[in-house]
């Protein structure tokens, strides 16, 4: 933590960055995103197990971009997000400083996207055992049970779109749900519209989702959105051998193809 604060202070003092996007103390025992613009406020930065939000979401937000060049405190999913955003031409090399604090108080400063690629190639991305158990449970269900399971889940959706707001890859200034000619997604939160929205959200993130899990954590009714994301991530990996957030270049599964892509259902 001291390393992080020292580095943040130095960056701000040298004018190398205008804002440090990091974690600070929030309400109660929570950590929340803070935007440090003055060197003397660098001591407000914290980093511990509570710091889970993917801060890379702020890199594409107009209000944050207007502050000037940022430094970002990045967790593992945030590092992937940085590469994915770079691959989608949303951020540029040299346009930000990436700081990755370790649990032991160490700090890695990534100078280039290539360094992040190298780091991620050797880093494991553990999956929460409880979440994996839920995935196995749903996969083992019959199609009818799966339908009932998901109908039960999406009938609780209140269409608040918090999943979209929390998602660092949902940066379209005008989302399809705001289009009403045609109205792809009905406004009221009935089951049909909720189903359509959740399918659309998952599909629009197919090949782009870095599996940070912020959508699931943002959901006020606790819909396990990570399941939908992971099904697509798994299918992309097994069919197309691609994974989002591993390269800072265009590597989007659905914008490319291979003439030898295999399936077993087209006659």
């Amino acid at each position, binding site marked *: 933590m001291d390393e992080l604060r020292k580095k943040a202070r130095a960056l701000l003092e040298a004018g190398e960055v205008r804002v440090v996007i990091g974690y600070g103390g929030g309400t109660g025992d929570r950590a929340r995103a803070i935007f440090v613009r003055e060197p003397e406020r660098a001591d407000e930065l914290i980093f511990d197990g509570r710091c889970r939000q993917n801060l890379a979401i702020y890199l594409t937000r107009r209000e944050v971009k207007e502050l000037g060049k940022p430094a970002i405190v990045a967790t593992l999913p945030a590092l992937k997000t940085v590469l994915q955003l770079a691959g989608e031409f949303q951020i540029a090399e040299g346009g930000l400083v990436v700081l990755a604090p370790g649990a032991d108080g160490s700090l890695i400063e990534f100078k280039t996207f290539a360094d992040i690629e190298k780091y991620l190639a050797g880093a494991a991305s553990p999956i929460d055992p409880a979440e994996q158990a839920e995935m196995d449970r749903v996969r083992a269900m019959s199609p*009818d049970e799966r339908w009932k399971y998901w109908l039960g889940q999406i009938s609780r959706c209140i269409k608040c779109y918090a999943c979209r707001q929390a998602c660092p890859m949902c940066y379209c200034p005008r989302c399809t749900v705001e289009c009403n000619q045609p109205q792809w997604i009905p406004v009221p939160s009935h089951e049909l519209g909720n189903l359509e929205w959740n399918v659309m959200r*998952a599909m629009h993130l197919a090949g782009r989702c870095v599996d940070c899990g912020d959508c699931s954590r943002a959901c006020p009714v606790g819909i396990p959105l990570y399941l939908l994301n992971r099904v697509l991530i798994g299918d992309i990996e097994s069919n197309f051998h691609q994974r989002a957030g591993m390269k800072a270049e265009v590597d989007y599964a659905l914008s490319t193809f291979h003439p030898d892509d295999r399936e077993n259902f087209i006659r």
Partner: protein
Amino acid sequence: MPEFEPRIVAFVCNWCTYAGADLTGTSRIKYSPNVEVIRFPCTGRIDFMLLLKAFAEGADGIIISGCHPNDCHYTSGNFHARRRWILFRGLLDFMGIDVERVQFSWVSAAEGAKWADVVNTTVEAVRKLGPYENFRKIDRAGAV
């Protein structure tokens, strides 16, 4: 009780399957009248949401058909579509949506007989599955 007549919606590309379906007709090949054909410029244009909309509007089955790989009028639209369907089909299956009701096929402009066969087999398969009650029963209170 009258026998259940499945309602099948076919999303087809303009250059191959639509022309193929035309050939079916000009060849005087008789096939099931349960299909409603919707013409698209390319399979690459067929948004996955259209499938959900078709089910929501009462389709019991869906056919998606276009040019064979390497035959796309736009060179690669069907290759992109194929990737999309691989992922979308997996997602639908995971959500318990009946993927047996969705038939994908490549039908060229010269395959009038194949088109008749694709439609007939799909209609019979869906007839066995029955009406898509799951989607009909889904709550849409407040829908316009």
